[in-house]
């Protein structure tokens, strides 16, 4: 078991002929991901890393039975490619692209929800079910199968923590990047619900950051979870009111503060790490207490 993707997931890579697309196709194949097709309009018939390239997702799905897609398309046309995947019948859609206009993201999030498609991202590192399937861009070697589910808003910080966990002998069931933008497909609560129901997951790491109220909402759900949660919130030392790269990290109107989030999480029963490297020890503790 794992959540959202597993060893049966059949993946198509959109813009497979691009620099990122081709590189990460190789990486995903090396991880063991079943990359069954690539898409690059006008380039149908080529192969990339041994994967057949189609002109359209529609053709790729009909020829290969792909049910997941990962989008490496530049921001200005990523929305077009994401809608294409949804209409072609893709069930899990991972949008790596960053800097997509928020209006396009809002349309995409709405349409994916309407069509019952699980949208990971935009502006996500992707999703990894250790030992089974990786759809996205993290390096392969941090991911070892194990009992810890990880859900995060930001990318590199997640690798940091996943690597720390692996170094401490703690493998991950599935690692999910919600995406760093304001409008994304999945919420903490949706992913926590899946982890709560996943027999392979014994504990969950939640990696949040200042801004927005996603962590506060998550705390509301964590209070009723049977599985232990360890959280880390980035941005304690961020100057207020400054924009920190992620639009979601704007602190406005006193909501979304570091203190407020930590308080809500502690009240929910979650453990909260002060620095990223403390996470493995806290997970070790909660797993031992069980």
């Amino acid at each position: 078991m794992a959540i959202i993707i597993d060893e049966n997931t059949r993946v198509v890579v959109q813009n497979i002929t691009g620099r990122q697309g081709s590189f990460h196709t190789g990486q995903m194949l090396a991880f063991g991901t079943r990359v069954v097709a690539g898409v690059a309009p006008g380039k149908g018939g080529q192969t990339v890393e041994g994967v057949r390239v189609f002109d359209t997702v529609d053709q790729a799905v009909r020829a290969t039975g792909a049910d997941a897609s990962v989008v490496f398309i530049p921001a200005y046309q990523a929305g077009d490619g994401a809608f294409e995947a949804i209409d072609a019948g893709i069930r899990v859609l991972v949008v790596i692209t960053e800097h997509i206009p928020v209006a396009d993201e809002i349309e995409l999030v709405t349409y994916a929800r309407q069509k019952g498609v699980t949208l990971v991202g935009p502006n996500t590192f992707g999703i990894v079910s250790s030992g089974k399937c990786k759809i996205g861009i993290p390096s392969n070697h941090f991911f070892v199968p194990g009992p810890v589910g990880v859900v995060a808003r930001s990318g590199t910080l997640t690798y940091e923590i996943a690597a720390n966990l692996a170094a401490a002998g703690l493998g991950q069931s599935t690692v999910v990047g919600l995406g760093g933008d304001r409008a994304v497909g999945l919420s903490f609560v949706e992913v926590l619900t899946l982890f709560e129901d996943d027999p392979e997951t014994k504990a969950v790491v939640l990696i949040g950051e200042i801004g927005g109220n996603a962590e506060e909402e998550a705390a509301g759900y964590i209070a009723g979870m049977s599985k232990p949660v360890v959280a880390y919130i980035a941005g304690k030392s961020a100057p207020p009111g400054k924009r920190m790269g992620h639009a979601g990290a704007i602190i406005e109107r006193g909501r979304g503060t570091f203190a407020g989030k930590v308080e809500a999480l502690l009240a929910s029963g979650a453990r909260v790490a002060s620095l990223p490297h403390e996470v493995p020890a806290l997970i070790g503790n909660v797993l031992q207490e069980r």
Partner: protein
Amino acid sequence: MKLFEYMGKDLFRAHGIKVPAGQVAATPAEAVAAWRHVGGPVVVKPQVLTGKRGKAGGIRFVDSAAAVAAAAGDVLAMEFGGLKVDKLLVEEKIAISREYYLALTVDGAAGKTVLIASASGGMDIEEVAEEGIVKRHIDPLVGVMPYVGREVAGRLGLTGEPLKQFADLVVRLHRAYRASDAELCEINPLVWTGAEFVAADAKVTIDDDALFRQKDLPRVAEKTDVEKAAADMGLAFVQLDGDIAVMANGAGITMATLDTLSHLGGAPANFLDAGGGTGTEGTVKALELLLGLNPKVIFINIFGGITRCDDVARAVVRFKSERLVKVPLVIRMVGTNEAEGLRILREAGIPAHRVMVEAAASAVALAGKGA
């Protein structure tokens, strides 16, 4: 990208939203000319990208050439939140029967645009109790038809002519918002004169990610020179006041890097998220930017994903050799192409860490030594 009030009003006007007659002025003489052009009592407003102009005494109501000139001179000499005033807006003073609040912005939690309205405009919207505020999400695939405006107007207690005019205004404001790829269009106060609605102020922020398709909009710089240089390179940069220059890749890990340095007693000089996939060239430029901050240490924290360690390693080697950099560099590097990156650094004789908290401790120690 924030727009100055007068630019926001130009946008509104282009979409048929009524705004006060007005003219922009950069000097007291121009302000007097603007006053003559507008005619009658006017208000002089500094064009700065902050919401605290009124409380800081920057809004002046005047009705003679002498008074306009004096007010313009005063206000042009003021600063608002550290921001200098380059331009004034000289506008007709409008009759106020009642003040409302109206805005469209992004509600990230809902993944939708949200319309926010209140019958208690004219003061800080944050101070109005939750019951006094109407929030209405917009279906992005349907958009805003007049009924959405009527529904909100009805909930605000409007009826008769004001209800119909409000509905029309909401349709136009949403059109302006979408056409300009705005992430905020705020009118506060929205004035009911007794006969019509007039947007007495305009706060508009454009989605930076959509500027590529907004060729017709003006461009406004709201950044320091070094921030601007970073933005031109596609980097997210914020200047802070410490002495450890920081480069990392990813907003979350950059924040965590600052948190860790602070936690260990260090003082970061900046936030710099180099993002994903910055190649060798971009990384060299980013490092040059950091050098311009005159830091005691440069701390590079790379966790390779889209960013490849070998690209960064090559950049560091080039930067150090070409620029003969004296400032100590602390490098932490793991992830994509890590082995190759570490090999490049090793061959160039540059030591590198693999554990973030160790690297951070080293940077803090070096900064302390340099003091």
